[in-house]
């Protein structure tokens, strides 16, 4: 549409502001958080607390990056906990344990990842082929998986005897928990994938506008399937590591991971409407959430209040990351 003076429909963007990378906001929050916490409690910036954080954050990071790719397409995957449970129990059954006579070592973790990828593929398949909203499919799958995992070990949680394997997680390498290096390697791998794989362009394109992406020649269904499978593999890896760390194969060890995963992804700047966000942003988001949780414990905040804070953070983060003026209806 054009009027006498012509260019009314030109998008207005303050040139200076848009030059800032999108991770700037979350990064500023992270830095502010570190400063505030180190002022509030002397126990925050101590070696033991930092090592504790390094031990804690890799698993949420792996989960969040998997979830991030799904959210970037504009879908959502709520199967985190169910897939983790099944993968954890599968891993427990394949390493030296109380239920079976297998002893596959690291191979057990690989089995957990495979189980996760298979469940992710199933999740994506039902969503894409059945045309059922991803949020329902993944929520249903998660519940089904928790049940399945519990049946697999018959109610008696599996004990893991493989201390060597556990050492690969909680043991030290170069002075810090070994799992920190796992997390770092995983992050770098995903950073490379994000930059150099055509798939990452296609994921963002689908999140931007599925129809345009299809017209441009993106195989939308295949990308969606791949993304759900990747997410499942991530949850599988997270579940496997979680199980080995706790040396227990049980579906009770996964509660709380879904909420912190989604919150981290959103806090890191990935819009729930899709198309925005980066792996680096997710890293920052995970750090923010882990440090907030850590800080609240150090400050001995009432646990119920902690939950309330976490909920408030999720809502606030969504309010900031979604451009609600563009949305005609909110459902």
């Amino acid at each position: 549409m054009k009027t006498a003076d012509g260019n009314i429909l030109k998008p207005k963007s303050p040139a200076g502001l848009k030059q800032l990378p999108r991770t700037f906001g979350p990064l500023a929050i992270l830095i502010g958080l570190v400063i505030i916490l180190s002022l509030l409690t002397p126990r925050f910036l101590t070696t033991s607390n930092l090592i504790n954080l390094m031990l804690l954050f890799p698993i949420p990071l792996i989960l969040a990056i998997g979830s991030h790719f799904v959210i970037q397409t504009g879908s959502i995957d709520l199967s985190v906990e169910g897939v983790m449970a099944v993968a954890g129990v599968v891993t427990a059954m394949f390493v030296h344990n109380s239920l079976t006579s297998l002893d596959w070592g690291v191979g057990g973790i690989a089995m957990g990842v495979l189980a996760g990828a298979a469940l992710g593929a199933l999740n994506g398949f039902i969503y894409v082929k059945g045309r059922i909203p991803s949020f329902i499919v993944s929520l249903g799958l998660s519940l089904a998986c928790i049940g399945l995992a519990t049946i697999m070990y018959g109610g008696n949680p599996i004990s893991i005897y493989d201390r060597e394997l556990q050492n690969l997680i909680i043991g030290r390498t170069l002075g810090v928990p070994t799992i920190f290096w796992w997390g770092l390697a995983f992050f770098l791998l995903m950073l490379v994938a994000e930059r150099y794989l055509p798939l990452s362009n296609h994921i963002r394109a689908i999140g931007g506008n599925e129809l345009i992406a299809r017209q441009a020649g993106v195989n939308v269904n295949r990308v969606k399937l791949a993304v759900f499978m990747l997410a499942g593999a991530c949850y599988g890896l997270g579940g496997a590591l979680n199980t080995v760390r706790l040396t227990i194969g049980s579906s009770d060890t996964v509660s709380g991971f879904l909420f912190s995963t989604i919150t981290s992804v959103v806090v890191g700047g990935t819009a729930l409407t899709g198309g925005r966000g980066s792996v680096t942003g997710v890293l920052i988001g995970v750090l923010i959430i882990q440090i907030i949780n850590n800080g609240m414990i150090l400050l001995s905040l009432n646990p119920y209040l902690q939950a309330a804070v976490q909920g408030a953070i999720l809502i606030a983060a969504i309010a900031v990351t979604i451009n609600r003026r563009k949305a005609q209806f909110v459902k």
Partner: protein
Amino acid sequence: MAHEVLVSMRNIVKRYPGTVALDGANLEIRRGEIIGLLGENGAGKSTMMKILVGYETPDGGEMLVGGKKVQFRSTREAMAYNIGMVYQDQALLPNLTVLQNLFLGYEHLFTRGGFIDHRKMKQTGREILDMMRLHCSLSDEVEALPLSTRELLEIGRLLWLSEISGRPPVIVLDEPTTVLDSNEIRQLFDIVRSIRDKAGIIFISHHLQEVLDLVDRVVVFRDGRDIASLPARDLTVAKIQEMMIGRELNTEYYLVDKQREPSERVVLEVKQLTVHGKFQDISFQLREGEIVSLVGLDGSGKEEVCRAIFGALKPDQGDVLLFGKRLNLKRPDLAIREGIGYVPQNRREEGAFQHLDIAANVTVTLLEKLAKLMFLPRKKGLQLAREWIEKLRVRASSPHMLIRQLSGGNQQKVILAKWLASDIKVLILDHPTRGIDVGAKEEIYRLLRNLADQGVAILMMCDSLEEDIGLSNRLLVLKDGRLTQEIDSPADRKPSVLEVIRAL
């Protein structure tokens, strides 16, 4: 100067339920030639283009690309032959960078062992920007770019695709100038001319002078057929207009003998209504029993004027008075309460509750009046729906039939019934006969005449100027958001379509 024939469309037929959009249309696209495709709304030119780019499949006729017979089932298949459309509503992703957009779906041409070679990709990207004489950066997000740049990027992408396949592209530019200012239009035209030798180009625009300035050949569509194909230098705007219309008004069809003289009483008065960027200073009156048509090209702002009066678009300035009383234009439900009805263009999404039955749709605006102590007397609602089904001859077996089970014409009748039942003073109709077959159209015309007889003031926009002229007492011409002219259209002295077209 035209050379090799790139695409030849012969005897193309396309039927939609109730109408024939294309009735044996032909089009030949040659390399090195810019074709101006012209015709009124509904003449079939956009359907022809949709078939060309694989968005629709024809019901008859054949299409040859490079002498070979083809049948596209998707836009992707047409793209494989380098046939593509640059849409006015943008086919780039705002959340990706220029570089990502340029090569979306074709990244594999730049990969080594599955990984993107960014250096190679950027180099090709820069070549495209240079060719299109664009000064944006490859890392700019498309969201931040002006629409003209986005259009040129799309064209650049199509040209590049054709280069790598070694086949000259066919590029359809659908109303590319509506979003551009005059400088940007000049830039676009320069570039289109500079790529002329490499491609076959089809240019669609409502601004006839613009078309004559740019194109080599003009093809005119009318009633689903190509009726003329002439070199642009032999043509004038007036000549093209004559070709585009060429039919006498059928006064019987539009029930012109039933047209009544409106009374002197003013029902609705619009005073200096303005929505920034859409329209300015619109003032007019609607009298009792009067039918008034808003006419104007795409982007003239007529749809927005109607939406503003109904409260669906918030005006920045101005007032709307109903029987001298100022209306609150904040929300549609306030307009409805005052007695203003609105029939939107988009039946499926805005006009009716597709998943509800006829009874619910007819009574939805009456709920408050029908309700007793907050409870709805279902029997009364059904009774009412039955009455209207009979009165409007809606083809439905019962009032419980769902709206989506009805044909377009019958859906529209139910929507009208909703307003008829709720005793309105003003009815606004946005393309009331779009996608409706001929028989149902006549019944809708009759309904409009009856409404006018009852004293309802009607404001509308139609699918063709003929319909506008045939039905209305008066036409208001909108141009670039301003009311530029009023044309009387009394029953005994209907203006000609040509007369109205010249005013647009």
